[in-house]
């Protein structure tokens, strides 16, 4: 079971390494999208500071959703997915490994890029630290939910748009508590409550999303 997890995880990382530019696109999208806001909203530091957490979180959300559409499409096309589902390994292990690999390739760079982006938006150091932690807890939720959406829309035309419509509503709690944590710190409150809720969300998603993904994959393959 754990060997299946590591096999899928290592393989997906290796594939991402072979296509480095493609793997970095979500992070580039993230940086570009965030840097549009000062141009659009205006460069007043006060305004930017107030909306910074929200901007970063929304852009991270969109970057995750855009990159997750192809999570299962390639494996479906070349028959690898069939082999994985027939291998006798529990489907949720494979789904978890795919989501973990997706997070490592796209989520982790977003977390790493967040401090730089925060500086661009003139965030305080306390707010920056909170933002990084909230993204660290929140982006895995996005990868897990995105994987579920990718499995549900597998083989459909315009799967990308449908996936975003299906999954975005489910990501709203993560967005609220993630951006809310930074807001709390900004107004001098503790972010512990927000972090606890984000952590609870992460545990809940990690327990349920892979199961749902495996089920959706089985249906998609029929």
């Amino acid at each position, binding site marked *: 079971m754990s060997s299946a997890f590591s096999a899928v995880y290592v*393989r997906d990382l290796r594939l991402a390494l*072979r296509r480095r530019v493609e793997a970095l696109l979500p992070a580039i999208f993230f940086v570009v999208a965030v840097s549009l806001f000062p141009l659009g909203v205006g460069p007043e530091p006060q305004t930017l500071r107030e909306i910074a957490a929200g901007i970063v979180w929304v852009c991270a959300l969109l970057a995750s959703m855009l990159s997750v559409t192809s999570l299962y499409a390639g494996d479906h096309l*070349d028959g690898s997915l*069939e082999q994985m*589902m027939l291998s*006798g390994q529990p489907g949720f292990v494979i789904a978890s490994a795919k989501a973990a690999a997706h997070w490592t390739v796209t989520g982790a760079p977003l977390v790493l890029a967040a401090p730089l982006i925060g500086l661009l938006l003139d965030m305080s150091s306390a707010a920056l630290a909170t933002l990084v932690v909230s993204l660290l807890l929140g982006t895995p939720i996005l990868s897990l939910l995105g994987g579920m959406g990718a499995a549900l829309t597998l083989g459909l035309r315009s799967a990308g748009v449908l996936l975003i419509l299906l999954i975005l509503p489910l990501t709203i709690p993560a967005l609220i508590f993630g951006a809310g944590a930074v807001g709390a710190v900004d107004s001098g409150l503790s972010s512990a409550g927000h972090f606890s809720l984000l952590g609870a969300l992460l545990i809940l998603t990690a327990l349920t999303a892979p199961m749902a993904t495996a089920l959706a994959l089985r249906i998609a393959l*029929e």
Partner: protein
Amino acid sequence: MFPTAPVPAASSYAAGLPTLTATDLACRRGNRLLFSGVNLAVRAGQATWLRGANGRGKTSLLRLAAGLAVPDSGQVTWGEAPVRRAPGYAQQLVFVAHTNALKDDLTVTESLRFLALICGRNSKLESVHAALQAVDMYSRRDALVRTLSQGQRRRASLARLALEHTKSIWILDEPFDALDDDGVQRINKLISAHLARGGSALLTSHQASSTAGLNMTEFDLDRFA
């Protein structure tokens, strides 16, 4: 409908492979009924050659047999239990679809090792290389899959068969597709050894010449349209 004579070989194996049985199977694609009333048994030591015109549902039948799809009526059983719930079926099944399940951006060895690892087969480098030797792909072992020709990809994909050393059931969808004469002979050799071990096989093929060297029972799907 299908030869029901007892197969003496099956009982002589210490722990014989269960029989794959399709009972009154029907499959529908959209509104079209592909086939119905199909009864089929694949016993240990026996190979079944599934024949039929294009679009008759050969691949659909193989997917039903592998447990990837659910039949409209009837059932496929492995021993006593339906294939989707049969204990150990996943471990004893090798399903090679018409897709090769190789990743373009991985090398031949990496692709094959992944399949071996995930299916719980021997994934040691030596055994994977030995399997590649069996299909004459050893010299291309470190080539990226995307640089291979169709025939070479098929060989690499079928190298999985050379990793099998225990009794198992092989479900092969057009295994000889894109293979040259040498490739066909190599695969036939693997299938023969597999049958001699007490394994069973269910396969489709359009070219009668490819299957010439094998002792196979024909099963014509055209009769069930």
